[in-house]
């Protein structure tokens, strides 16, 4: 399939998702003439749907960049201590402020968002420090694992120490799109554009890296600079998504795979297409999460984990089959 066509299809899927997201609610369809209904549509459902799309796009992009940078099809946005950093930051913030379990007030949410974002950057920064720079990919990955394990342990310690944050933590860990407003949408859109630009600038280097680090260097690619740029873009997009929606499983891992099954393409297209695919996936999951047990809703992370897991399994078995 031509990449342009796939992009058009994915964007179309995203647009249909936004329409479905606006139409789906705890009350089902309602008349648009109703004053209260238009407020709900405009101030709650539309930003929520667009926000879910943006978060998915950020994760898809981060996944594509991570898989290219680490030359590993299992790399995902939560590598390098990003997720565990955000998690620990949220846990500490909750433990200290003692926010109630239903911390749905806007102020608390905005505060937590900032803290989660800082936590992501701190987690990735710590990984870089422990790996002593970006010289070696394997060392980076291992340092990321170490940071992940240690920070998770600290998070568990925090929840042990103040058990009443457990519920709020759980809501964060399972992913949640319910609190997205126009603010979140603009923050995520801005991060997405910045990360996309960096990704596109670095994409020829990612293409060269597919043949290995030695070959990429021999082709004149300055690997250290490219790695630094990409890790920045990766942390920015992961941080923005995690801060706004919590930890949504599988979207970042699956999106690049989905794109690759449909077309063999260079990284410039892969990053763009993974963003479109991630957006459509997360939005679809969000609509499903809100529709299945109306008027209640499932955490969207649960839906992506279930659907994404099954999809990856299918993909794995199809890829394992003889190719010709």
């Amino acid at each position: 399939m031509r990449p342009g066509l796939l992009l058009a299809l994915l964007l179309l899927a995203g647009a249909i998702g936004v329409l479905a997201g606006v139409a789906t609610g705890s009350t089902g369809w309602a008349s648009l003439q109703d004053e209260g209904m238009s407020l709900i549509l405009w101030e709650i459902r539309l930003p929520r749907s667009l926000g879910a799309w943006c978060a998915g796009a950020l994760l898809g992009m981060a996944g594509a960049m991570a898989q290219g940078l680490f030359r590993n099809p299992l790399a995902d946005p939560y590598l390098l201590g990003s997720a565990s950093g955000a998690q620990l930051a949220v846990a500490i913030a909750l433990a200290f402020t003692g926010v109630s379990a239903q911390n749905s007030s806007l102020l608390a949410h905005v505060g937590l968002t900032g803290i989660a974002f800082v936590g992501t950057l701190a987690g990735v920064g710590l990984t870089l420090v422990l790996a002593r720079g970006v010289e070696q990919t394997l060392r980076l990955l291992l340092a990321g694992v170490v940071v992940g394990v240690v920070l998770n342990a600290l998070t568990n310690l925090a929840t042990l120490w103040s058990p009443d944050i457990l519920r709020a933590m759980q809501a964060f860990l399972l992913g949640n799109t319910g609190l997205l407003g126009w603010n979140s949408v603009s923050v995520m859109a801005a991060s997405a554009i910045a990360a996309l630009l960096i990704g596109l600038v670095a994409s020829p280097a990612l293409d060269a890296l597919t043949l290995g680090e030695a070959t990429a260097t021999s082709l004149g690619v300055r690997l250290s600079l490219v790695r630094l740029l990409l890790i920045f873009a990766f942390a920015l997009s992961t941080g923005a998504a995690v801060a706004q929606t919590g930890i949504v499983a599988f979207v970042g891992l699956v999106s690049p795979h989905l794109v690759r099954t449909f077309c063999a393409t260079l990284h410039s297209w892969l990053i763009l297409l993974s963003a479109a695919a991630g957006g459509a996936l997360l939005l679809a999951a969000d609509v499903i999460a809100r529709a299945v047990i109306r008027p209640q809703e499932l955490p969207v992370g649960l839906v992506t984990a279930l659907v994404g897991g099954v999809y990856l399994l299918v993909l794995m078995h199809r890829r394992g089959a003889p190719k010709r």
Partner: protein
Amino acid sequence: MSTALHARIARVRIDGRDLISDIDLAIPQGRWTAIVGPNGAGKSTLLRAAAGLQRCDGAMTLAERPLQDWPARERARQLAWMGQQESGADDLTALDVVLLGRLPHRPWLAPPTVADRAAVQAAMQATQSWAWRDRRLGSLSGGERQRVLLARALAVQAPLTLMDEPLAHLDPPHQAEWMALVRARVAAGHSVVSVLHELHLALQADHLVLMADGRIVHTGSPADTATHEALKRVFGPSLHIAQIEGRWVALPL
């Protein structure tokens, strides 16, 4: 005879072990140099270090200028490199992979020009891989893949090309094709260095570098008796070197 690349390497040390040491290697300009030696002799390490792709205790001079003084992209146009069994790139088409060889010639992010496409087509036709340009690299057989990777290195059109075991997975007719390619390059004034396991092919080179235990034990013309003696010393007395139809061949008997 001028020198395309001069490598003086005191040692390459990895995990407390010297992989190669006391290297002084001059690659002659406009010739085909073959590096041979038993497994673990340090051939690949030497090639990587000479190309500046391996951190080492030494100094390399490319076209009379220290290697590290070359700007990255300019150096990439001078020195093409092909690694040993390069893996990955399974999800790129063969054409896109070969186009990577034009990266040093293109302004960053600029689309390939007509000249780039022409160079890629010529390289792929030279290795007979043009037919599967639209296929994913991951769907090719080992030999087909190797020919695409070879085209990738050729597409750089660098005056000096270093290849690590370029003949792996190639069947005898394509090995002969590869030799013809190298001969054409050399006739055009380019220099080619290849690490080879195929002794009978290495004996067709212009210049032979023999390695053992991380050192260069002999350099010379493949037709010299001294070279034959050195080969027998390194590979053991069971190696027989004889002339068939004017060409030197080596057979383990």
